[in-house]
C-alpha cells in the first residue's frame, strides 16, 4: 500500500519569493506521483505528474517538481510566487502495476501569499 506525507500543513511566503512544498511517499512498488491544486471554492486540478523519464517535471503556472527515488520525495517548487498561487496543494501517489490504480492523497499544504 502507498502513503503520502506532506510535512507542512501551512506555508506562508511573501509575493515574488521562492517556495518549496515538501512531499514524501511510501511504497513497496514503483509509483506515479502527482501534485494537484485546489483554488478557493474550486475543484481539484492537476498541476503536474511524474510517470517516468526525467526526474524534473514541469507543470502549469510555473511550478516544477523533482522526483528523488532514494529519498522517496517529490517536492514542489516555484522560483517566484504570485498572489494568485494562494491555494491548497495536494501531493498524491499511485502504483504503476495497474492501469486502473487509485490515487492516494496527502493531507495537503495551504500556501498563503503575503503582499
Amino acid at each position, binding site marked *: 500500500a502507498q502513503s503520502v506525507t506532506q510535512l507542512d500543513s501551512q506555508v506562508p511566503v511573501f509575493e515574488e519569493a521562492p517556495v518549496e512544498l515538501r512531499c514524501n511517499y511510501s511504497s513497496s512498488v514503483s509509483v506515479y506521483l502527482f501534485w494537484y491544486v485546489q483554488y478557493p471554492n474550486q475543484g*481539484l486540478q492537476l498541476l503536474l505528474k511524474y510517470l517516468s523519464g526525467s526526474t524534473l517535471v514541469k507543470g502549469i503556472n510555473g511550478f516544477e517538481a523533482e522526483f528523488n527515488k532514494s529519498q522517496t520525495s517529490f517536492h514542489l517548487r516555484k522560483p517566484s510566487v504570485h498572489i494568485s498561487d494562494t491555494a491548497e496543494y495536494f501531493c498524491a501517489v499511485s502504483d504503476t502495476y495497474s492501469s486502473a490504480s487509485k490515487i492516494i*492523497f496527502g493531507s495537503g499544504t495551504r500556501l498563503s501569499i503575503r503582499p
Partner: protein
Amino acid sequence: GAGVSQTPSNKVTEKGKYVELRCDPISGHTALYWYRQSLGQGPEFLIYFQGTGAADDSGLPNDRFFAVRPEGSVSTLKIQRTERGDSAVYLCASSLMGQGVTEAFFGQGTRLTVV
C-alpha cells in the same frame, strides 16, 4: 460534457436519512472515482469503477455506503442511515483509463451536511 458534473452542490439532511449523490463524468471516460474530503484533510478514496463494475471498493467505510454505475456513465453514491460523521465534501473524478496513466478530472464536489 465539458467537465465532471456533480449534483447537488450542497445537501443538508437529518441524521438517519438516506441520501443519493450524483456524478456525471466526462463523456467517454471509462474510469470513475469517488473520494471524500473532510475539512483540513486530503481526499480519501472510496470506490473506483471501470465501466459498469466496481474495480476497487476498498475505501467504502462501511455497509451504509454503496455506489452504482449501471450504464458505465453516470454514477450514484448512496448513503443509508446517515450519521453526523458522514458530513464532508464528496468528490467525483473521471479519466480515460486508470488515474495512474492519465489525468483524472475532478468535479466541484457535493457538500453533505448531516444535522
